[in-house]
């Protein structure tokens, strides 16, 4: 099977740029919204072709995490989270599998698979991603309250953001 390497690479570059140039700078300052962080780069792992070999996706996640970490000045935190998400991606895909199953050749075509599926996939994936990320960042469950608040707030805004991106770019695979 041929993988669309070029578009995967282009997505990588664009998502990293979006993340570190734009969304890293967006901050809310009032009240509970101050906990919000915008995440777009995990969608790169989400949109990987279904049949991609696991070692490749793990290494890809590691590289992407390290690049993000370099800009975020938090070496290892994003990488650890993203490698973990790449590892459990198959489980999440099984969890939200549509009744007709996946078509491995066209992967996640918005027209075929539907916006609702995208929303639930993004929701579950991001929920776990954010929770793991904030846990690793705090590095101690003493800060459980902050971890949960950050997870919920970031989940709301980041998943909206991702769905908008999906609608705009409408990826074919």
């Amino acid at each position, binding site marked *: 099977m041929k993988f669309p390497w070029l578009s995967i690479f282009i997505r990588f570059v664009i998502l990293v740029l979006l993340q570190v140039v734009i969304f890293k700078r967006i901050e809310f300052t009032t009240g509970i919204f101050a906990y919000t962080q915008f995440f777009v780069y995990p969608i790169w792992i989400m949109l990987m072709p279904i049949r991609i*070999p*696991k*070692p490749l996706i*793990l*290494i890809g*996640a*590691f590289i992407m*995490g390290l690049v993000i*970490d370099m800009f975020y000045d*938090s*070496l*290892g*935190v994003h*990488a*650890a989270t993203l*490698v*973990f998400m*790449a*590892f459990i991606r198959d489980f999440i895909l099984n969890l939200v599998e549509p009744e007709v199953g996946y078509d491995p050749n066209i992967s996640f075509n918005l027209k075929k698979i539907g916006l609702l599926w995208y929303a639930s996939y993004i929701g579950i994936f991001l929920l776990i991603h954010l929770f793991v990320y904030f846990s*690793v*960042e705090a*590095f*101690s469950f003493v800060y459980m309250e902050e971890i949960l608040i950050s997870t919920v707030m970031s989940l709301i805004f980041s998943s909206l953001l991702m769905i908008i991106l999906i609608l705009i770019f409408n990826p074919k695979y």
Partner: protein
Amino acid sequence: MRNLLLLIARFGSTILFVFLEVICFFLIINYNRSQKEIWAHSANLFTGSVNSKVQSTSDYFYLESVNDSLLTENAKLLAEIINYRIYSKNNEYQDFETQDSILQEYDFVPSRICGKTVNLRNNYITLCRGAKDSIQAGMGVISSDGIVGIVKNVSDNYAQVMTILHGQSQISSSIMSNDFHGTLVWEGEDARKMSLITLPKHAKIAYGDTIVTSGYSTVFPFGIQIGTISDFEIDGGGNSYKVDIDLFNDISNLSHVYVVKSKFVEEKEEIISEADQ
């Protein structure tokens, strides 16, 4: 080798996952300040608790030798205190500037208890030390809380002690506050109670008064605390009180004792027996 390849083929991605996560956490801990501090602190908590557990366990193994050295030290301190007490009692009205010549009358040999009875009419204790450690028949035996008994028989390595819980035990003792003097006997009921007899009936006594050894014999030094007065009555038709005493020490749970060595036994006994003749 084939098995290894199969293993890698089967769990390769899991192994890679674990490997990458280990790298990530290594980076997190080494290049992020707050996580580094949390890690160091948690690691210290863990290793600290392990260390203290190991320490307390190994302490337990050294308990016996520590006990022995503490016993020896205690015996030395006890000798110091008692000799000083006797010295100051004997020189009550003298100037204390010439303290350098405190008479070292008593010495103490610490010993473990190898065997004992407390529930018979006549109770004995066996000490794990004997003639080799210069224990002789007739020496007194005390514990940290009070008196225990008198050495009766000695072999090379063991000594048999007639405890104060014995029908023939008679200890010369007095009331600490006013020095009225009587004989301490055991009536054979309770291992924690004894009686003071031949205490003259004009003596001033009260509940709770402390009874100490009189120091009139060479067996026990002066002033070792024995117990407190719990009850007293005048013997019917007699001339003396019969006083019930609650002992300070409990012989049934003793494990270590000190044997009292007096340097002037012979001298003192000589002059007493001369007077008798």
